[in-house]
Every structure is written in C-alpha cells, then in structure tokens.
C-alpha cells in the first residue's frame, strides 16, 4: 500500500504556486443515468463532499450510458466530453475524479488510452487523481454467473440477453484480457499517468435490529448479503476485495476510516454512510 500523503504534499505545494482552480467530478457505475445526482449518488452525499472545495460550485455529476463497453462513445466518449466541457467552462486546473464501481473502469480507459481521443490528454493533464470507490477493476464473478447460462444453450439467448455490454465486460475473464492489453495499473502493468486510489468495501452487514443496516437502503443491502455467497469472504456483496484493489493503489479499506469500523457494502460506497463523504471531502 502506498501513502497518499506524499502526493497530497506535492499537490499542496503546486497548488500554492499555481493557485489551482480545483473541481470535482462524480462518475457513476454501470447503468444509463440521466439524473445521477438524485438517483445514483443522492444530494446529501454530493453536498457533503463538495464542502471541501474552495468554490463549492465547481463540481459536476456525470450522466452517461455505462451499459455500453467502456470505450464506446456513449461511455468513455460521453465521460470525456463531460469532463472536457467542465474543465473548459470553469477553467479547472486541478480535477479530482470520484468514481464508483464500473465508473472506475471507464475512467481508467481514458487514463490508459491517451491517444484515443484528443480530449483525453487535456483531461489527464488536469486530473490530480482518481478516487475510485469500490472499482470493479478485475470484474466480478456475479457477471460471470449472469452471463453463463448460455453455455451450449443458445435457445436461452433471449432470456439472458439483457446482460448488457457493460456486464459482459465485467466478467472476470474479460477484464483479465482488457487489463492485460488495454488498461493500465494492474499488477505487473505500467501505472496510469495519474494516480488511481481505491476505497475498498469489505463486507455487508444486515440485521433488522441494527440501524447501520439501513444506511443506503435495507433491501439493497440485504440483496448484497445474499450475493456474497458467490464471492470471496472479503467482498462488498458485488465485488471481491481483490477486484476492488486490483488496479492502482489502495487508499483505504472501509474499516480504516468508517465510524465504528463499519464495513461498506457496494451500495453504501456511493452513499453518505459511516464517514465516507467526510473522507472524500477532506481529500479535496
């Protein structure tokens, strides 16, 4: 694990010299979002995080179609356009990108493939670092399970056809290929040009008698406790810890900063639960 502190001092130094105009972008996970501020992140989470900005207006909440493959123009193309426009519209010189789940892969696509699109180098230049909340860097066995039903059973294609391109991409053996040949930052591969720091959810706790189980929605957390059956002992209910820590640097495990050492389920790692928003706020 590498310390983020050293990078913070460097950034503080350069900020002082260049009077950085700091902004923050929130990048959602799998799905086609049209109002991620209200639907994916929730206002109380975003508003708490942006308290860390000198100018709290300098934030953007991304709405793109992350049901597509990460390189698709509706995925990375849309994300690049949104970040590029945000940077130019506000003169952002120092951008912190907060991603959740598959949003980390789409952002890593941009960092790893700077010559794909002329906007990518500009974005990379302005990014301070990426705070990747529960990134699906090595994929998830759940994506394998969802898409595996078609083995020798093509007649079932209609039934399982809803597995989006993003779900297919997040199968563990597909991510293994993309990490090896198209993405940077995994073990043995060169690092991304800007830091990719992951926050890792390690468990799901649900009890109707425990108020903590209700943070982020009880039923969502209950579902994640059940999906843990398909996963390693260390998981957030959707991703194994190994996947979340599979690219870049580990910033924090949930128990290292949460109130009462509470674990963060995959749902809670995008919500104002147990001090996560405060951690991100203080990082700005």
């Amino acid at each position, binding site marked *: 694990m590498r310390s983020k502190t050293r990078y913070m001092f460097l950034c503080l130094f350069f900020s002082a010299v260049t009077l950085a105009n700091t902004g923050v972008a929130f990048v959602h996970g*799998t799905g086609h979002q049209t109002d991620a501020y209200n639907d994916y992140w929730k206002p109380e989470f975003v508003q708490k995080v942006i308290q860390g900005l000198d100018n709290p207006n300098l934030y953007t909440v991304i709405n793109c179609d992350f049901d597509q493959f990460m390189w698709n123009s509706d995925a990375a193309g849309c994300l690049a356009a949104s970040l590029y426009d945000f940077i130019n519209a506000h003169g952002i010189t120092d951008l912190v990108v907060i991603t959740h789940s598959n949003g980390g892969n789409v952002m890593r696509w941009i960092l790893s493939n700077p*010559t794909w699109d*002329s906007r990518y180098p500009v974005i990379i230049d302005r990014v301070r670092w990426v705070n990747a909340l529960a990134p699906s860097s090595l994929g998830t066995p759940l994506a394998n399970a969802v898409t*595996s039903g078609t*083995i020798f059973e093509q007649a079932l294609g209609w039934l399982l056809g809803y597995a989006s391109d993003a779900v297919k991409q997040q199968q563990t*053996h597909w991510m293994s*290929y993309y990490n090896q*040949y198209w993405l940077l930052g995994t073990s043995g591969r060169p690092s991304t040009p800007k830091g990719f720091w992951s926050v890792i959810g390690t468990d799901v706790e649900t009890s109707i008698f425990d108020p903590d189980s209700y943070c982020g929605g009880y039923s969502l957390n209950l*579902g994640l406790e059940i*999906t843990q059956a398909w996963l390693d002992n260390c998981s957030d209910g959707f991703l194994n810890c190994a996947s979340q820590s599979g690219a870049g640097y580990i910033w924090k495990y949930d128990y290292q900063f949460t109130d009462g050492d509470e674990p963060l389920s995959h749902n809670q790692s995008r919500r104002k639960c147990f001090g996560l928003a405060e951690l991100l706020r203080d990082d700005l």
Partner: protein
Amino acid sequence: MNKINITMVLCICSIFVMSANTYRLLPPKRGDFAPDKLTGSPIESRSMNENREELSFHWLLNPKEAINLYQRPQRTTSSRYSMEIDSTEIPNGITIDTTAPGAIIRLFAVHGPDEELDLDSSYALLPENMILVNRNEEAFQGEEAFISFVSVEEMDEAGFSLPEGTVGFQINPKLEAGTFTLHIDQYQSEFPLRVHVFEKDSAYLLNLQMNSDIAFEGSQITVYGDLSPSSNMADDASSTMRTEQFEAQIHSPSGAIYPMETSRTEYGRLMATATLPEKGSISEGLWEVKVKAVLSDSEYKIIREGETAFSFVQPTARFTGRVEISGMKVESNIRDDRSSKGISVAFEVDTAHPGRYEVKGLLFGSSRDGKMYPLAMFDTAVYLEEKGLIEVVLAQETLKKSGLSAPYKIMGLTLKDQSRLAILSFQREALTL
C-alpha cells in the same frame, strides 16, 4: 546538373544521415507475437474510433515500478455447472452432484418471452415445497435442507439481474457432499427447468488456459484444461479420472458457434483445438471458448463448465521492422544525447486497410550503476491510409527529469488497431538506442 547543385544535394543528404538513421527492430523472441501476413479479407465491422487526429503522449514512470513484460495467457477457473431438465423427467427428481458441502443452487423455468409459468408450478418452485434426498436415501426439508432463500427481486436490487422466476438457495452446509436428488413434486408445467450449481468451496476447479489471448484469423487455437485445487499441475486430478463427457466450443460475439476437437495431452491434460475461420465477423467484444467436462472417480462425479476469452484479430497492419531514429548526436556517439532536443523514433508500419493505428511501449533508461529501469511510457496514434511511419518523440525534458540516461531500450512495443480494437503485435525487447 552543375557542380553547385551536386554540392547542395550532397549537403542535404549528409544532414539527413546525421539527423535520421535507419535501424531494424531486434529479432522477436519467445512470447512475442506478430502476424506472418496481412489480411486479405474485407473489413466488415464499423470503425470503433473515427478520430483522424494525430496524437502523441508520454509520461514518466516510477523507475521502481515492477513491470512484467512476459505475456502469459490468462488462466480461468470454474467450480460451477448448469443443466436443463425436461419436464417429463422432473417427477423422477433432479440429480444434483456436489463435491463440497453448501452448494448454491439457482433454478428457473425455461419458457418463451410471451409465455408464463402457471401459479401451481411457481408455487412448487418455492424451496419450502421441495424435498432433498441424499445418497443414503435420507430426506430433508425446510431449513434442514436449504438456507439463504432469495427472491429474484432482492437479487435484482443488488444489481444481479436474473431471469424472472429464478429461485436461489444454498444446500445446508451441514449435509455431506455427494449426489442429491431434488424433488419438486408439485411442478406440473411443460416448461423445462434450468439448474445452475455453484460450488464455492469445492477443491475441484476446472482450470482453463489458451495458447494465446490473441488469435489471428485462420490460426489454430488450443485450450488446455485440468481439474485441480491450485495452479500446481502436479495436483491435476483430471489425469487419473474417467472422462464421461468433454466438449468445447468457440463462441463469437455475433453468436456464431464453432466446434472444437477434444483429446488428452500425453500427460493426461484435457485439450481442445480448432482452426479459426479465415474471415470472421468482427463485432465488439471478445470471443470465448466454452468447455464442459464431466469426470468421475470412485467417490464423486464432477461436472464443470468454464470459459476463457480471446480476441479474434484480423491482421490489418504490422511493423516492417524498419525504424528511423533522429535527434541524437549520431556522428560522435549515439549514446550521448546531452546536446539533442530529445529522441524521435519512427516505426514503419505496413497496412492492409486504412485505419487508426497506435504504437505504444516503454522506454527504459540506464542508471549510474549500469542497470536499466522504466523511464517513460509512450503512445502515438495516427490514421494511416497505407504504409507509413508512426513517430514517437521523447522530449529531452522527460529524459532529464528521469535521472536516467543512455543506453536506452524500447520494451513492450505494441502495435494496435484502434479502428478495430485489436492488438496486432507485441515485442518484449524491441530496440536498443
């Protein structure tokens, strides 16, 4: 041509020689790959990147980074299988073979998009209406048999979308592994049932590994399989087990299926081979090899399905091997770059089709102790209509900042086709500067 003109031409030639020198890429080594010939097939896919702008980018690397440039095909593991049970067989019970306690079962009725399961049969699929019988003919019901019941709605909310009507449960881990019979007596529907079995804690993992993650059109691919609890081949249990079934197929992203020939290696490993089509439809996404193996010994019947992925590549371009290097003090000492403005390395690329091609790689530099360390990652992409040069420029500022110096090496040299999202070649050690 008069004497003055001849003198001018000679001067121009000598400047060119001093500023750009022609080199050859080093010979490929084991693990490197490149197409033997360019494709003669037309391109049927839409371009995945329409960008025509030449872009170049490089960044400094931490010299202490542990970079592994030995490309090894991925290894996948599986401890699951699935089966389809015809409605006429359901009254006899569904046989579920397990090799570890606590298998996780998912099942659903297979019906058409406009069809629905009748209420009685839906009710029958509730675990409280099922009976589980072990190999000693002991029957179990309720929590004695099943735990962790889950509804499809709960799973869907967790982001794990499953077919409508899916029922999921775990066989009580207190029950010993082996062959079970699941009785769903009230199921009256004509729809077959699809059953998925996942054995999280089984020691019997189907491990699959292909000969390469990148496969050119018309090439032969091989997938190897073994049944072992780890990657240690000495533990391969499959070599001594009886093979009851072993099938392998190639699935393209567009839905085409190609059979593979199956056999055993001389050491008893499972092996499947096939020759890829000369012309495959290039769709977004990866091709897959899907394998089903049924093996048995005196204690267990082991059923496993697994898959591995690869990229089907039309060889649309390749390096000719010719490289032009400029920007270094050629006449005195090529390894002395202190007075230059940086290094320009232009790779000649031959193309079969116009497209956006990318050259990516690592520059290693030397430290005072004579060892080589990662210095920078470079990346240039251009649109080529035909054979041309792709130039990588490494600024003197970058070289200086690194604290490393000549001799330099270009490592991990990769040629990509951004238009078709394809990796065309990789060379671990490409050039010494």
